[in-house]
Each structure stands twice: as C-alpha cells, then as structure tokens.
C-alpha cells in the first residue's frame, strides 16, 4: 500500500513538473496581433507609472512590441524585438480570497476550509532587453488567464534566438 502510494505520488509530482517546464512553441507571427487584458507593472526606462487597467493593450509584431495603457496619463512604450534578450514567464499560484469568503457565507467553517483549498494563478511575464546605448532594461506584464499562453507563444516566436 505504502509503495503504491509513493509511486502514484512521485508520478503526479513528475507530471506536474514536466507540465511546468515543457517549452511551448507556436507559429512565427507574420503580422501584428493585439491583446487586451494585460497589465504593465513597470520597468520601461524613462517611463513613469504602471498600468493596472485590464483594458490596456499589448501588440506583438515581428519587429516590435507595443504597450498602450488605458485612460488619461496612460503609459505607452515600444520595444524593438531585436533588443529582447530573455523572456521570463511565471505562474504565481495563491489562495483564492474570493473562494474563502464565498465558502464562509455558504458553508460556514467547512466552507472556509474548502475555499482555502481553492487556488488561482496569476501569470507574469518579464521581458529583459537592451536599450540603444547597450544598458539593460526590463518590463513586467501581468497576463490574463485567457490570453497568457497565446501571448507567451507570440513573444517566444518573435524573440531572436541567441
């Protein structure tokens, strides 16, 4: 019994790790594509502020990446794809506060315990690139659960292979 549980446990763990580290590949985009539901969390040189509005837009084309924030005093910047060095994508899993509250309201203590098990994942992408004078820079985006895979694939497709 103990041996079989250990085997199942190790298999599930290995599957989880494999799913996390398997590189995703996508077709090379020939034209620009724009996504909304992207937040900007800073980093662009000489660009002040963040853009936490899901209405902001990210456009990825073969030669440049353009971010356009929403609202007045919105952030806007462009990054030539040729200057990008690294794409760092991470999924940040955390407790779902809404599920805990909903669990408390509907099921009391048992609901809280169940709600505490509910997790949600925030998706972050950090692009490291070089400015025209050779100094390093980086930008961080938060992606939506419905677009993160498409955006990461599109970014991987336009980043030059080193």
């Amino acid at each position, binding site marked *: 019994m103990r041996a079989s549980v250990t085997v199942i446990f190790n298999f599930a763990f290995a599957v989880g*790790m494999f799913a996390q580290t398997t590189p995703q590949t996508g077709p090379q985009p020939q034209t620009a594509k724009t996504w909304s539901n992207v937040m900007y969390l*800073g980093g*662009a040189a000489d660009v002040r502020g963040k853009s936490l509005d899901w209405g902001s837009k990210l456009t990825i084309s073969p030669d440049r990446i353009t971010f356009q924030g929403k609202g007045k005093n919105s952030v806007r910047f462009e990054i030539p794809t040729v200057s990008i060095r690294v794409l760092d994508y991470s999924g*940040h899993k955390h407790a779902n506060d809404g599920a805990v509250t909903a669990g408390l309201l509907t099921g009391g203590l048992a609901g809280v315990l169940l709600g505490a098990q509910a997790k949600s994942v*925030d998706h*972050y992408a*950090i692009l490291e690139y070089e400015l025209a004078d050779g100094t390093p820079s*980086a930008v961080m985006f938060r992606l939506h659960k419905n677009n993160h895979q498409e955006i990461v694939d599109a970014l991987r497709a336009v980043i030059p292979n080193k």
Partner: protein
Amino acid sequence: MIRITVGIRLLCMLILLANITGFAFAQEPVKCGPEDEKDKITKPKGKQSLPAPASGKAMVVVMYQGIIGKSYQVKLSVDGQWRAVLKKNQYSFFEIEPGVRRMCWGGRVSKRDDNFLLLTARAGQTYYILGTLTKGISEVDPAEGVKIMKKYDYVTFEVQR
C-alpha cells in the same frame, strides 16, 4: 472504522499532493525580502535633507501614504532585500545600483500584483516611490514626490536579532 481511517489518510494524501504540486508551480515574479526578518523603525532627530546620489549610483525615496487607523509596518525590498521599513506618513531613502531593480512592497499589506514594481534605474537619478495600503507601489513624478516627502517624517530601520 478501518474504512474511515483509510479515507482520512487518502484525504490527507490528496491535500498534501495538491499543496506540493502547488508549491512546484508557485513562483513569485519578484522576490521579496526574508519573511522572518523583524525590523525596528528609528526616527532620527532633526530635519533630514535628501542628498544627491553618489557617483555611479541612483537614489530611491520611498513614502508610505497611510490611511486613518492603526499603522502597521510596511516594507520595500529591492532585489530580495528589505531596504526600507515604514509606518504611515513616513519616508526613507537609499542608494541603488543602476540597471533593472525588482521591487516588492511587503509587510502588513495585502498580497496583490500591484505590490511589484520593476525600475530601470540610471546613475545620478532620484526615483520617488509612493506606497499605499490598497494600491501597492508606483513611481510618482519627482515634483509630486518632493511635495509628499516634505509632509512626512524621515525614518530608518535596524534589523532585530
């Protein structure tokens, strides 16, 4: 009785499995400072003027805009090290190396994605970071930063062993 015990054991295994695979997936986009670090805020006497950054360095001024009620410690980390510890309506400053710096707003704040900030720092520049309880951290215009800083108290901190 045996069935109940087996059921409980299986449930425990499932919860453990869920948590372990969760940890394997969990990855903070920006590393904050050590969670177990205890810090004590100290308030130097007299007015503290903001110096220009040393040659080859950049300066960061961080301010905490508090709200009504009891004030708890909040912290700003740069590249995984706590560099400022504040309570409401306090500010601090420190030098950083130029380049990409990864900042995290921690302490008694709710965990949200706007607690993260990337900054491409240039030598000789001063950056004003405003933190709040509900909106995380963001860089503000220097003129606005100076105006807020003048209303707040300067503090430093020491790590308690």
